[in-house]
């Protein structure tokens, strides 16, 4: 079963995403959490991760910079942006930086499941 990394500065949102993954019926082995891009890179350095769910607006290192760093490190793991920042230009930049897809907050477990089902 796949391991998932959730990168979001809100601990509430990390818990909601974790719960939604289970409620959506997605088979997941381990869920790693990180509070910003820097922590996310540290987790990626020491663990096997099959999918990353990342916020964009975070302190220290935001989601766009995080994607760039992940790709610069040669990682091809799918990255889905989960964000309130649903503007077209931001999402275009996220995709150009290496994001695979995006989902807007707020979301339901079903919406999350449908979005991730094809990536796991």
């Amino acid at each position, binding site marked *: 079963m796949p391991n998932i990394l959730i990168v979001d500065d809100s601990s*509430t949102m990390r818990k909601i995403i974790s719960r939604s993954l289970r409620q959506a019926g997605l088979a997941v082995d381990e869920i790693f959490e990180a509070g910003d891009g820097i922590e996310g890179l540290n987790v990626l350095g020491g663990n096997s991760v099959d999918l990353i769910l990342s916020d964009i607006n975070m302190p220290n290192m935001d989601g766009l910079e995080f994607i760039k760093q992940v790709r610069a490190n040669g990682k091809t793991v799918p990255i889905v942006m989960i964000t309130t920042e649903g503007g077209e230009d931001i999402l275009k930049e996220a995709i150009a930086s290496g994001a695979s897809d995006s989902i807007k907050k707020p979301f339901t477990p079903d919406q999350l499941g449908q979005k991730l089902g094809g990536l796991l």
Partner: protein
Amino acid sequence: MTLNEAVIESVHLTEAEMAKYVIDATKEVFSTMVMMNVDDSFPLREPVTKFSCSITGMVGLVGTYSGVLSIHCPRPLALKITSNMLGMEVEEAGEAEEDVNDALGEIANMLGGQVKMVLSKGGMDMNISIPTIISGEEYTINSMAESDCVIIPFDTGEEKFLVSLKLKKE
């Protein structure tokens, strides 16, 4: 008390339409993330600056338009919101101040994001700040331009809370 006229002209929306976006966003966030249905009332005519036993979550908007999106909740409702969002008991939430602050901050963040979507063409001309939380037995929030604001009361059936949006065009 109304939204800044320059904002209304620039976004080509009436104040009622702008308020409707805030109302719809609040209802969507509460129904999907808090598992709570809320009803809105008519926007307030006078600003609310003094709060008792409450928690305020706010995010700043900066760019083409600047301002603040705030949610003001009585503490018991903030605990209920946190317990619903995190799947914990209300008593448990009462002992986890950090979780309560984080939950209210995330709601402000989601609402600010929805407002940004209405105001920003592609998303790159505006930024949202990291959420700020204010809480206490008695506190006052003042602004230099108290009139350029829309404040919408909501009712959960047991408690009331306010969502306010203050905006100006840069």
